[in-house]
């Protein structure tokens, strides 16, 4: 009895520390200490579990922790910040794998002799867990560009997906009534793995912020279900926090794209809009030399930098900061405009710029910075496209119509750093590039920025 009370107390302490830790994330200066508290909570819970009376053999536990730490340490310490979206996706995969295996082991050990309540929990656990495993792998593959980033679609795909999903849910319901049918349990497991693949493959790489947050949510829900299955409150609490934050983030991301959940998940940008071609016809973009661009930047009093996924690809965040310092050294002010879905995961640009030592009070959310564009002498767009496309405001036929954008076009002049005139991910032509007052500086972002830095220095 005393033992159980001790264990439950460590779980209680862990839950409190988790919540306090997450609360600290509301303030950047307190966040680090808070997360250390959460990590301490985790250690408490693990120590508490070690004295569980059911545990008779510690070999596998110790070995498992050792192996996990050996893989986890390099994953945490050495993965570059530019690979963060993949890293997060892979982390979801590991968490979901653990939850799923616990579910399978529980079911196997009970050899199907479980009540309907427990079966419901185990079913949710394997369902959410398994689809998160494969879904996260697919997402990581797309982000790492092992898999093509474009949506992989075929005719009737949504029908197939819905049928697959319906079948799986059907089996799940049947199992609640007949938990002894082990074959069906493993069929459901396999189908859930298949759902994960089919769900993520048709989603394009630019929609990954939604997918990654959604997988975050599913991984949390799998933990919740594990908690119900083994009757453990700390699992339910921690899982609810994870599930809640993932869900909230995916709602925020969808909103930032002005698309519904369903649209992101099922409405892959397959075919470019018909109206796309006519926008670019007869229009020419004006290209600019690094010298001229540098001259504009050097004499600007307010420069707003709009980073996008292109900055991450070129790994040019350090050059961005250096250029900003040059401009500031000449008396200009530099602000960064961060669109919620810029990049491949929520907060992607913030992390990259923080890595490059940009102070976080220079990073502005969309709502804060949009009124400032009118005062800006130069808007410097670095590898961003859809998030500054004015068609989202003006062209109802555009697939991104209605999406809130950064008003870069309101700035007195716009300089766009871009590799080529290829349309952005969504295949949508961007009229910002053809506007008078916009000039294009073609080339790799890192190379262009390096040139700009040298030129601004010599102005």
């Amino acid at each position, binding site marked *: 009895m005393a033992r159980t009370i001790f264990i439950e107390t460590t*779980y209680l302490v862990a839950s409190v520390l988790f919540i306090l830790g*997450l609360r600290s994330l509301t303030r950047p*200066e307190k*966040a680090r200490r808070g*997360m*250390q508290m*959460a990590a301490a909570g*985790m250690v408490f819970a*693990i120590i508490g*579990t070690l004295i*569980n009376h059911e*545990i*008779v*053999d510690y070999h*596998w*536990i110790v070995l*498992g922790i050792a192996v*996990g*730490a050996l893989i*986890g340490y390099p*994953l*945490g310490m050495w993965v570059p*910040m530019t690979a*963060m979206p993949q890293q997060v996706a892979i*982390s979801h995969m*590991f*968490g979901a*794998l*653990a939850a799923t295996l*616990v579910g399978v*082991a*529980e079911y*196997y*050990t009970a050899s199907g002799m479980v009540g309907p309540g427990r079966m419901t929990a185990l079913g949710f656990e394997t369902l959410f867990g398994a689809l998160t495993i494969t879904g996260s792998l697919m997402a990581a593959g797309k982000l790492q560009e092992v898999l093509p980033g474009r949506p992989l679609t075929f005719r009737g795909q949504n029908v197939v997906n819905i049928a697959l999903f319906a079948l799986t849910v059907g089996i799940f319901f049947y199992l609640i009534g007949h938990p002894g049918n082990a074959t069906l349990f493993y069929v459901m497991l396999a189908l859930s793995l298949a759902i994960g693949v089919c769900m993520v493959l048709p989603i394009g790489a630019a929609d990954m912020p939604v997918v*990654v947050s959604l997988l975050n949510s599913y991984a*949390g829900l799998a933990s919740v279900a*594990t*908690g119900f299955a*083994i*009757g453990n409150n700390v699992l*339910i*609490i*921690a*899982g609810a926090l994870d599930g*809640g934050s993932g869900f*909230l*983030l995916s709602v*925020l991301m969808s909103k930032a794209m002005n698309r519904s959940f369903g649209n992101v998940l099922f409405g892959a940008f397959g075919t470019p809009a018909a109206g796309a071609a006519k926008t670019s016809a007869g229009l020419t973009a004006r290209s600019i030399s690094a010298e001229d661009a540098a001259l504009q930047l050097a004499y600007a009093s307010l420069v707003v930098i709009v980073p996008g996924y292109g900055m991450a690809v070129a790994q040019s965040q350090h050059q961005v900061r250096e250029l900003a*310092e040059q401009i500031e*050294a000449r008396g200009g*002010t*530099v602000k960064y405009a961060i669109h919620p879905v810029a990049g491949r995961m*929520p907060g992607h640009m*913030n*992390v990259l710029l*923080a890595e*490059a030592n940009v*102070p*976080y009070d220079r990073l502005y959310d969309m709502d804060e910075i949009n009124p400032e564009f009118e005062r800006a002498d130069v808007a410097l767009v670095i590898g961003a496209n859809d998030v500054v496309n004015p068609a989202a405001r003006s062209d109802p036929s555009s697939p991104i119509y209605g999406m809130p954008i950064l008003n870069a076009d309101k700035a007195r002049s716009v300089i766009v750093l871009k590799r080529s005139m290829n349309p952005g991910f969504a295949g949508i032509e961007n009229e910002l590039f053809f506007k008078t007052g916009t000039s294009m500086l073609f080339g790799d972002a890192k190379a262009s920025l390096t040139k700009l830095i040298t030129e601004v*220095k010599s102005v």
Partner: protein
Amino acid sequence: MEITTITELYVFVLAGFVGYQVITRVPPLLHTPLMSATNAISAISVVGAMVIAGAHYNRVSTILGFIAVASATVNVVGGFLITDRMLRMFRPAGRGGSEAPAEITAAPGTPVAASAGTAASAAPAAGSASPTAR
């Protein structure tokens, strides 16, 4: 439905409310750390995995438990480390992050001091090779 299930549902619903309240206040600035942090926290399923790996129910569940302990630990260790690494980088203007080379102070003789009052970012013009922050 047993009474413990109802209690667990209570816990779930209330934790959901608390989570919602806490998480809506996290600024977009910290959304990536939020994601990796909640992910690391949800790897608490390691405690379930530990019991299965150590309880000797049968060979299959011991092996599954072992793999589950390992992958949950990857998640715990990797998740907390990377969250900490990210949070270490976030710093306000005027203060050097611990991971940042002390470039702000090392600017004697830098041409044109920050005239716009943005002293913090007046880094040395020359020789400030981009910090190799791993």
